[in-house]
Structure formats: structure tokens, C-alpha cells
């Protein structure tokens, strides 16, 4: 066993004292992300706790989606580590990693539905691959998941036959196929009209409440951030570091960095906070 996956070493507080906290689901330690020589973000440190709706926010091009892609293993860190619970994801063996992956659900920015399969087949594929259920049971579960996201009756549609908002919801149904502990959303409201976007937010909150899942959302939609976010990290594009952590509603009022306040107030200072609609 490598040192890094030692559970005691895995989670430490700022002073380096080992902490074994049952409630910490994801720990990002000293993460530096880079493409070749170009450093996207450096020295990221944060934790996501059980039941959080954790927002990764920041201006365009700051590396929000890149951070998400690191967290789900599509990109390898230049430095640092990511832990799920007390297990290192970065250092995990391929088998271990596959096992961890199966506890995630990911909703991609474009939906990422397999375009050659119907919606029901999309949801059914992970079930068929990773469970021993009978085909009839898999079909039932697929229909259930589709009805959870309001797509009952669309089982035999292909992704290209439905609207963008429906594709997002179908993607969510697929992400939930294996009843994951952690759901990742990459820009869920991108390309959606305000009403669909709001409905998706409500859906996320409902799912969070009933599944008790931990949710990580990449977004820059302020309305979504304040509606669903319980915790957040702000990535600053100029310094290439994370500059704020915490509940976005509190950050908006009280964060010492004016850049963070301006972002959360649509460019205005916090005195005008009242104009931003809050649930």
C-alpha cells in the first residue's frame, strides 16, 4: 500500500493533524492541473461533505470543467491527489478505480447520451453491465429512472429526437442508473431556457433530498448557484488559484475578495445584492 492511500494520512486539517471524518466524501489535496506547460489551476485544497450540493464556480475559462474532469478521472493531475472517503482515487489500481467510478453518476454538458441507443437502452446499459438483474427488471428500472426525470413514455426515443432540456434530463436518468452516492453535473443549465433550467435545479434538489446523494455542480449561473448551492469553491482565473470557499449566499455578502463579491453579484458590489433573485 502506498503512503498516499493510507487512510490516516489521507485526510488532514490545515495544521496537518490527521482527521477521520465520516462525513467527508471527497477531498482534493494540493491539486495542480496543467496541460503541458500551461497551468490551469494550482494548489487546490477543498473537501466536499456528505449531502452537500457543492458548486464549482468561476469565470469563463478558469478551469471549472477541467477540475470536474480531474475529479472523475478523465484527466490526470499534474500534482496532488483526489480522495473519495479515505481512498485515494488518483493512486488507485485500475480495478479499485473502476469500483469507485461505479459509485459516481456524471451528467455531461452536452448530455453525452449514446446516440445510437434509445433512452431506455442508455439507462439500461450500466445496469446490464454491472448488475445481475434479469432483463425484465432492468427494463423496469430504466422506465422508473426515466419517469423520475419526467420522461415516462419516452423509452424508445433516440437522443436526437428529443429537445436539449430532455436530453439533459435523460442524461440525469442515466447518471442515476446505478444509484450512485455522488452525482457530478457539468454546466447543467447551459443551453436551457430559464424555465427548463429552473425545473432542472428543482429536480436536483429533490433528488438530493430523497437520495441523500452528494452533488457536485460546475456552473456559473447565479440563479442556480444560490438556489441549490450549500457549499462552493471559487476559481480565480487571474491568479489561477481557488480564492473562496463556503456557502455562496454568505460569500456574496461577506467575502473579503471584491472579485468574488462582484462575480456573485453580476459585476455589481454587494450593496446591490437585493437585486439578485434569491429563493
Amino acid at each position, binding site marked *: 500500500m502506498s503512503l498516499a492511500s493510507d487512510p490516516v494520512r489521507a485526510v488532514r486539517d490545515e495544521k496537518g493533524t490527521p482527521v477521520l471524518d465520516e462525513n467527508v466524501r471527497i477531498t482534493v489535496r494540493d491539486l495542480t492541473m496543467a496541460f503541458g506547460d500551461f497551468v490551469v489551476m494550482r494548489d487546490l485544497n477543498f473537501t466536499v461533505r456528505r449531502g452537500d450540493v457543492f458548486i464549482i464556480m468561476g469565470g469563463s475559462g478558469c478551469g471549472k470543467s477541467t477540475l470536474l474532469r480531474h475529479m472523475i478521472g478523465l484527466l490526470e493531475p499534474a500534482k496532488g491527489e483526489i480522495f473519495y472517503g479515505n481512498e485515494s482515487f488518483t493512486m488507485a489500481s485500475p480495478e479499485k478505480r473502476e469500483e469507485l467510478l*461505479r459509485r459516481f453518476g456524471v451528467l455531461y454538458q452536452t*448530455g*453525452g447520451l*449514446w*446516440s445510437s441507443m434509445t433512452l431506455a437502452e442508455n439507462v439500461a446499459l450500466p445496469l446490464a*453491465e454491472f448488475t445481475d438483474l434479469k432483463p425484465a427488471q432492468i427494463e423496469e428500472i430504466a422506465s422508473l429512472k426515466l419517469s423520475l426525470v419526467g420522461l415516462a413514455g419516452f423509452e424508445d426515443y433516440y437522443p436526437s429526437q428529443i429537445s436539449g432540456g430532455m436530453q439533459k434530463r435523460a442524461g440525469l436518468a*442515466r447518471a442515476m442508473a446505478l444509484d450512485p452516492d455522488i452525482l457530478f453535473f457539468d454546466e447543467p443549465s447551459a443551453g436551457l431556457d430559464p424555465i427548463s433550467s429552473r425545473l432542472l435545479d428543482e429536480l436536483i434538489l429533490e433528488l438530493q433530498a430523497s437520495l441523500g446523494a452528494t452533488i457536485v455542480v460546475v456552473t456559473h449561473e447565479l440563479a442556480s448557484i444560490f438556489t441549490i448551492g450549500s457549499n462552493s469553491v471559487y476559481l480565480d482565473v487571474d491568479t489561477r488559484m481557488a480564492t473562496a470557499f463556503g456557502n455562496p449566499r454568505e460569500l456574496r455578502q461577506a467575502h473579503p475578495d471584491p472579485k468574488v463579491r462582484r462575480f456573485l453579484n453580476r459585476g455589481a458590489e454587494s450593496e446591490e445584492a437585493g437585486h439578485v433573485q434569491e429563493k
Partner: protein
Amino acid sequence: MGNPATSIDVSAGHDGRALVKLAGLWSIQGELPEPEAAAAQVVETGPSEVRFDTSGIDRWDSGLLIFLIRFEHLLAEHGIPSERAGLPEGVRGMLHLAEAVPEREGARGQAVELTPLASLGVHAKAVGHGATATLEFVGSCVLAFVSLAAGKARFRTSDLFLFMQEAGAEALPIVTLISFLVGTILAFVGAVQLEQFGAEIYVANLVGIAMVREMGAMMTGIVMAGRTGASYAAQLGSMKVNQEIDALSTMGIDPLEFLVLPRMIALALMMPLLCLYSDLVGILGGVAVGVVGLDLSARTYYEYTKWAVGVDDLVGGILKASVYGILIALFGCLRGMQSGNSSSAVGEATTRAVVSSIVAIIVACGIFAVVFYVLGI
């Protein structure tokens, strides 16, 4: 249209300030004057500042803006400031917007002109990377086949059958057409030469051996590279753009097993069958020329073909076809998986898939020729 002419009039004022009068149509639709001459004129008068009078301007658009930006830039080099009060309000607003965000440092550095030597180096490095990537891909494919043999590979058998249908039955019409024509071409070329010796009947041998040993496998290979290899690259490329491949990876499903394996198996199984069919149709093309053009009897043609073509010729051709099939599927899938994230990248991946597979087929054909010669087959 009778455009009012665009005019620039520079005059020196009494207060040491130059006045530039702009008049007429300042539009990208018409002709635009260059600012150098006017700037030189202004510099000559040596003013402390430049003012503008634009009351004579008929209509303006971006044409006026680019003129002014360069004009002011030229004057700034001589330390002459300009007073924008005389410009139309819209122009001032646009100039202000254009200058609001300073150019990001290094943003322009992207497109650096390389010296021939440097670009040779860049290309050489790219070739090196390409070779490594190809080897890695081949290695991963082998691993995928190993896990298939161990019964652990994940893909849908329904996909496999679909790909077999696409690469097999649906390719028959085009393979028929090409093979028949190749057979007749071979027969005609042979007939012209053999007629000189009165040996027309040997057209049967020529067509038979050529089709079975070389042309059947190669023509099928080239048709399939353009047809199926290209489609594999396009499918995988667009799946990549659409994040479908990411979705497989994060679900713990190896895209290589799920997407590449069934395609490779389908093509490797279908190519030998197509090749066999192509051999047959090519020989029929030869028969058609022999019977219609050379007055040979179909019976004699059949006897000569049977006498000329041996089982090892047939087996050799089919072996080649299987190898070509694997190469086509390999390069089709490799280029698809390597595709970038844009529609033009998918197009490029498709092109590269076809080019790489055809090159690979020809190279493999050469290697086979040498090996068969050495082995005396």
C-alpha cells in the same frame, strides 16, 4: 450608384492644431483611402494636436473605424495626440469599446512563423508522437482481446451483429461492381498482349491468378477502407465530440472494449468472406470478356481457371484480406479515438483513417509479396 467621393482634407490651424476634414462615404462597401498619406501630411505641419471635422461625412461604418485607428496610431508614433470631440458620437463609442480591453499579452504569439528547419523538427516530433500513440493503441487493443479471451470484455453482441451486417452484406453491391470491373479490365489488358501470340485462352489464367492472389484482397481492402474505415472514424470521432466516450469511461466501461472490439472483430470476420466473393465476381468479369470479346467457351475458360488457380493462392489471398481487415479497423478506430473536439476534427480524423489504412494495406501487400516469394508460395 454615384457614391459621393471619400475625401480627406488636412489643414493647419492658427492655434498650432491640425484640422482633418473627412467627408463623403466611409464604408467597407466602397473604396477606403489609406491613412499613411494623410498622416504624413499632418506630421509635416507639426501640430500640437489633431482635431477632426466630420460634418461632411455621408455615411460611415467599420471602414471609418479602421482608418481612424491606424491614423491615430501613426500620429501617436510622432507624439501627436488627437482630439476626438469632432468625431460622430457612434464612432467615439466604438473606438472606446475597441480600446476598453487591452490586448492580452501572448495571445497573438499563437501563430508564430517557423523557420523551415524548426517546422521540420516539429513535424519529426509529431511523427514520433504519432508512432508512440499508434503502438499504445495496438497494445491496448491486444489487451482488450486478451480480456475478451478471458471472457471479461464488455460489449453488446447485438452491436457486433450490426457491424457485421454493415461491413458484410451491405458492402456487397459496391464490392460486386468494383470486382467485376477489375476482372474485365485485367481481361482486356491481358487479351491485347496474349492475342499477339494467339494465346487468348491464357486470359483465364491471368485473371484467375491476379484476382485470387492480389486484386481480390486489395480491391476489397481499398473499398472497405473508404467505406467502413471512414465510417468507424467518423462514428467514434463524433461520439468523442458528444462526450459519449467520456460517459463510457466514467461508467467504468472501457471504450476500447465496448466500441473498438466489436468493430475489429466484425471487419476481421467479414473481410475474408468479401474477398472470396470478390475473387469470384472478378473471375466472372474475366469470363464475360472471354466469352463476348474473345469467343472463348465458358467451359474452356472454367477449365483453364481451375487449372491455374491453386488452393494455396486462394488461402494466401484470404489471409491477406483478414490482415487488411484488421488494419482498416485498427486505423479507422485509432483515428476516431484520436479525433479532436470539433466538427472539422472529425472530418480530419475520417480523412486520416482512409489515408492511413490504404497506406497500411499497400505496405502489408509489399511485405506479403516478399514473404510469399521467399517461401515460394
